[in-house]
């Protein structure tokens, strides 16, 4: 009985944890705990991301950890689906805005190929865009938004330097 009560209250604790800005713990633990990912996370802790292209497609959890969570540079994470018309409008717009910038990368995640990432970030609708800096989700929006909102998100992302 006690165990059940404990696990239930733990579940509540987890839920409130997710809702605060300390998503860092959750996202790091979630991704790094995946069996293949864990080893790579430790391995690549000090890897440089300077070889990474500005806009790239994420193909695996390992890819995500290397190029987004461990990125020295802030990353805009775009959850995208081929069957989603607003996505087809937003993704090129994001790329257009990010390409000329040196201090922001763009990671595109196809929801059909990355079920675990979709699950981890609880993506319920597309397009979903997260702004990630130093492994922390600092901002997000869902749905097709205008250029102003995208620029604001990018500005927020690149404004403060360091965690």
């Amino acid at each position, binding site marked *: 009985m006690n165990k059940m009560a404990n*696990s239930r209250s*733990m579940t509540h*604790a*987890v839920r409130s*944890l997710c809702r605060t800005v300390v998503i860092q713990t959750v996202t790091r633990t979630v991704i790094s705990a995946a*069996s293949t990912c864990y080893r790579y996370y430790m391995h690549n802790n000090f890897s440089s991301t300077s070889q990474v292209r500005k806009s790239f497609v994420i193909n695996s959890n390992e890819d995500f950890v290397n190029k987004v969570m461990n990125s020295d540079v802030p990353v805009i994470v775009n959850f995208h*689906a*081929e069957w989603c018309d607003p996505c087809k409008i937003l993704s090129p717009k994001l790329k257009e805005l990010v390409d000329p910038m040196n201090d922001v990368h763009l990671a595109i995640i196809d929801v059909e190929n990355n*079920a675990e990432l979709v699950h981890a970030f609880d993506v319920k609708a597309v397009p979903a865009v997260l702004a990630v800096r130093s492994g922390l989700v600092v901002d997000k929006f869902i749905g097709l938004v205008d250029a102003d909102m995208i620029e604001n998100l990018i500005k927020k992302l690149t404004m403060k330097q360091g965690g």
Partner: protein
Amino acid sequence: MAVAKWLCRVVIARTHSLELNSYSSSKRIYLNNGVNSRPARYSSSCHGQYDLIVIGGGSGGLACAKEAVQLGAKVAVLDYVTPSPRGSVWGLGGTCVNVGCIPKKLMHQASLLGEAIIDSKAYGWVLPEANAIKHDWQVLREAVQNHIKSVNWVTRVQLRDKKIDYYNGHGQFVDLHTVKVVVKTGKEHTLTASHFVIAVGGRPRYPDIPGALEYGITSDDIFSLENSPGRTLVIGAGYIGLECAGFLNGLGYDATVMVRSVPLRGFDQQMAGIITDEMMSKGVNFLMKCIPLSVEKKNDGKLLVSWTNITDQSTHSDVFDTVLFAVGRRALTKELCVESAGVKTVPESGKIFAENEQTNVKHIYAVGDVLHEKPELTPVAIQAGKLLAQRLFSNSNEQMDYETVATTVFTPLEYGTVGISEEVAIKRYGEDNIEVFHAFYKPTEFSVPQRNVKNCYTKVISKRKDPQKVLGMHFVGPQAGEVIQGFAAAMKCGLTMKQLQSTVGIHPTVAEEFTRIYITKRSGVDPNPQSCCS
């Protein structure tokens, strides 16, 4: 820190089970550590008991699963699509979402919009020349498929959110309480449960004639067809055949329907005749009393079809770009190996005879198209699935009411109906004991573009003696589905002619015709409309 450690364990276990291609509830993993913590490299895994395993992720199966999990049951859903002979496959959601109601309605709408464009000229819209107005099949196909995929995705997200274990693999009964399923990776899972719901639905049949399997398509393929169908022969005149021929014709393709006996068999035949008359006047060709003999592929890629007219035994042939078979559907019970669980099926159709959705095996149930002699409709499957889950996992005793189910055939001019046909009424009560009210009518909107109104007709069948309880309502006209829906609720309340005729209509609509109906077939009075408002 303790919370984070616990979270780690939960997530490791959760991710481990994700690799096994299932979404497990974290609570269960936490408690059943022994059984579920086998490493992924084992080729098979044995899962603990489920309260309910639903086989088939379509309308009925998903509704049952979602309701059951809400009532606290541990539920797993199995779903798998065997590729059609043409190679068509689709995602989670069943026939309705992928190759039935949804894409059908979208394509029907596409063809109606084509008609509306023509009509709009009379209403003052300035348009390019009629021959410059074309339809692009690829654009429609992509739009329809994108919508279907978005629904597939939302469905998967819902299962995940509701913590229903989902296995994308072909399930088969091993014994009374066990099902095995092989998922995409090749891993085999053996699942046991205290209850099972068979909701595997059906797939289109092919006739046993040369060339049918190799060159024909079915409703499984039409909605994702890569190239435009071109000149199409639809073999079969049930509602699937008529609806397909209807929208293909509306989109500008030459469409022919081959009818073996009568169109819309089982429906009110007077209404079926009106529907086909309307389709003929719109340009659909009908080959009545004909059955196909063979389909051959010519050198230019077109299909040469031979058929015989069963009234005079003459044979004919013609060339088409596409041949679509709509000659009936069969239940997928054989593939499920139901006999391994002792479930009896009806030999011809493979369907399951169930009393209150319970098969001859006490803990095995069935919902949806797989049921013998129940309407093959999504809302019926959904309602039955929900009520079944409530009876299994809560104190409910409510049974599914299969009577007074409204339905609509989405031919170019739609046919909506609720209750019984005139033939069934005569058979059940005798011609002398029923009254048939009817009327032709003219939709206001048809006047300006001078659209043909001769097939706009409505009929109400009631008992002859007071209070003249309404037995059936039939409507051919635009928006028939929208028109009939409310009347289904009225009939469930025991609608009588007095109540119907004392209802004040909304003007100008087509639905109000039901409130104005008064001419009986028995009187012999001409049911054609004189004028609009008086």
